[in-house]
């Protein structure tokens, strides 16, 4: 899955949705990053990281950073 396709838009949307769904957790970004690690297949995470993160909400952006740093 490469950046710049419809799929990357889907992944950005999914990441934003997850961040929003977990926004009330004690550490929303950590929860979102953990959720993505638990449920996303590695190539989806790779494709998300390849997008550069444009279009991510602040929480999702922070989760993105944690995934990238992992």
């Amino acid at each position, binding site marked *: 899955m*490469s950046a710049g396709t419809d*799929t990357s838009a889907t992944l950005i949307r999914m990441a934003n949705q997850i961040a*929003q*769904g977990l926004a*009330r957790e004690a550490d929303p970004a950590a929860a979102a990053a953990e959720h993505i690690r638990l*449920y996303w297949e590695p*190539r*989806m995470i790779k494709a998300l990281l390849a997008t550069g993160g444009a279009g991510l909400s602040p929480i999702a952006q922070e989760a993105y950073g944690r995934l990238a740093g992992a």
Partner: protein
Amino acid sequence: MTYQPQADFGTPESRSTEQVTLTIDGRPVTVPAGTSVMRAAAEIECSIPKLCATDSLESFGSCRLCLVEIDGRRGTPASCTTPVEPGMVVHTQTPHLQKLRKGVMELYISDHPLDCLTCAANGDCELQDQAGAVGLREVRYPVEATHLGQAKDQSNPYFDFDPSKCIACSRCIRACDEVQGTLALTMQGRGFDSKISAGLASDNFLGSECVSCGACVQACPTATLVERSVAEIGTPDRAVVTTCAYCGVGCTFRAEMRGEQLVRMVPWKDGKANHGHSCVKGRFAWGYAQHAERITEPMIRDSIDQPWRVVSWDEALGFAATKLNAIKARYGATALGGITSSRCTNEETFLVQKLVRAGFGSNNVDTCARVCHSPTGYGLNKTFGTSAGTQDFDSVDESDVILVIGANPTDAHPVFGSHMKRRLRGIDGRPPAKLIVIDPRRIDLVRSPHIEADHHLALRPGTNVAVLTAMAHVIVTEGLADEAFIRERCDWDEYQHWAEFVSLPTNSPEHLAAVTQVPAETLRAAARLYATGGNAAIYYGLGVTEHSQGSSTVIAIANLAMATGNIGRRGVGVNPLRGQNNVQGSCDMGSFPHELSGYRHISNASVRALFEQDWGVELPPEPGLRIPNMLDAAVEGTFRGLYVQGEDILQSDPNIQHVAAGLAAMDCVIVHDLFLNETANYAHVFLPGSSFLEKDGTFTNAERRIQLVRKVMTPLNGMADWEVTQALANAMGLGWTYTHPSEIMDEIARLTPTFAGVSFDRLDKEGSLQWPVNEAHPDGSPIMHVDGFVRGKGRFVVTDYIPTEEKTGPRFPLLLTTGRILSQYNVGAQTRRTENSLWHGEDQLEIHPADAEDRGIRTGDWVKLSSRAGETTLRALVTDRVAPGVVYTTFHHPDTQANVVTTDYSDWATNCPEYKVTAVQVGASNGPTDWQRDYDEQARRSRRIAPVEAEAAE
């Protein structure tokens, strides 16, 4: 063994714990207090003659045949209406009784045709049996006025009604009333003119309110109501108990057979899910299993524009294995995946995910629960610690308040719907349970005979979380929460955090009414009733899960149950009504890409090690792709081979054009099914499947009840589905050696702690088991979280209402929501191939009169339904069942293609598609859309099968 109907004790079992001893015909018998003399006699195999009594119905006392003599009592009381008393001395056979019974029977027979030899009930007729039992040898009455020679009503496709054979015992009417709860049948006229009517005098059985559940046919003691299959084939000669393959209720039936021919399915009285009841699907709609369109030979083709070529099993499996191995060699294991079926057995599902994980070498396995109850798994796991409903079905008998949200039990789970209706009508002698319905549409439960919902919250589609949060607001701010329960059983700090959130003024019913369209006072009253009305149980369905906030809604439901202490005992709980017969089982069996059987995450090294040791392979530790992501990856070229067992993703998954594009991009699509389904239009290998009548295995129903499926006939395709999967695995070189599904269950039990105590032997002996069955719960678990939550402390999770991104606007001003109807089942692959289509031949669009008038639409008009995703056409039904602004349709027919219109928005946590909310416009139409025409053409071309060459066929 010759055919024996199930024993009939005449009157229902008493649940009293007090025991009473009496004497019947000189023999002592001890039975629970409240038992009838008739039933007590039956317990010692003394069969008192009877006609109007049967143990599925309350005693009626009308036939005057079951008379007995009791010492110290005058006259001859009816044994069916006389309860036992301590020390009672009963005589069931005396010269006086014999004379009375013979006289009564003589009257019955004087008005009954004597065509026993050619009668459909010959050999299985209670009237015939009782005439024999009372020693009737002659009928002295002259043949004058009788009821003979009346026309039969053959309007129902599955059973005939012959009024000439009716003895007016009212068993059919009482079954319709007490068992089914439809109250369609009635006794028309009085005295000699009494006649059973299907409804109004002008109604026949097809046109009346009758739902064709078969309860009346089962109750009829003569051939007045008899299955047409019995009339055509003859009486069965053996019966095998098995489990229905339709919905998640999991009714058990006696498959009554003659040789390998199925004569009829009769609901099994000892079935713990259905207690002898059935619906039109399970009881009658099994003809698809022998339908002419069933494919029984394997087929292959190199590309989907070619016609199918019928080949041998060896060639088909070799072809498939070569393709899969080639993809794996070139693109890696992650390019392969599989989809397990919620229609198949636990053992078959387990094998498919094992093939994917151990054979293909990826975790790319998913199941149709992705599109239905995946949010249930997520939500209940987060809050309670396990992904399943908390109660057994019988628990509803002890409910005082029933809250139904996003479910339509009388259509989608009809046998449980009838059970629930008995509680709602209070016919068990207790005050009726109160009812709250939260649904955008006025489902039948809201108002049906003798039932009226106390509150119907007709919310705007997509606002479930707002409604439930507002209910929580009322419960917390009005001090109705059960703090003692919460302190003992839940995390108090998390509760306080949650309580603070729901108490915010922005979560009040008044504030949220603008969003939900539910009047604040109605919502407040419903919340108060749920919190304070006694045992309160929540039942929910896909109207909860199939939303962008599906998982949040499940969590919100769990929060409400915990906050009010409605968890951990009978009569309460959180009950997902599962759609498919084995959707619970397929989830339990490790069908999701992120977890192994028993809901254990794939990243858990010790769990993985258990499987690795047993299977002798290394398992990838990362989750695999979900169905929509498989399709995305296929379009991008990194996912190239898919094995689909018993699932029609092209019809059942959202955004058909995207599914079609994904399938079309793959190198090898293997469809394993009974029919050339819609997905098979894009397949390269077709492996014929077997029906539930043709295999052994187990299904797990919505109450976690594991029940045996028993093979009653040889598979038409030659192999049960588990054998086909094993053959494919072996063609890929895996060397599997299962000889019976029981060995697969042994493997499941070995590897899955919640199934540790399950085996075919035990299921055979005990009838069913509800998981967890293990050291802590050796006899299974009808109710969960009794002493504590599976996860320890129950967890409150804050659920913010987040509106869906799917918005109405000037172009798409209406909201479409979808659902099911009683007579059809899901994508209709089975039921459309039965006479059930007489009730529902096409999907219709329900539209409110105001919206219809604005658009000049009348009932029966063709209308175009368009959304941002696509458009389709279907006929309109103008009705105020739906609110203004909301339209509704079913998705049972492929030519309608409701999923052309639904979007690819999905649940935030699980990607369960948002089927229940689509912004649409409706307008007049002249006929099918271009998409429908193109689709038909593609499907027609794709289904071509090349003429069979002599050597190609086995």
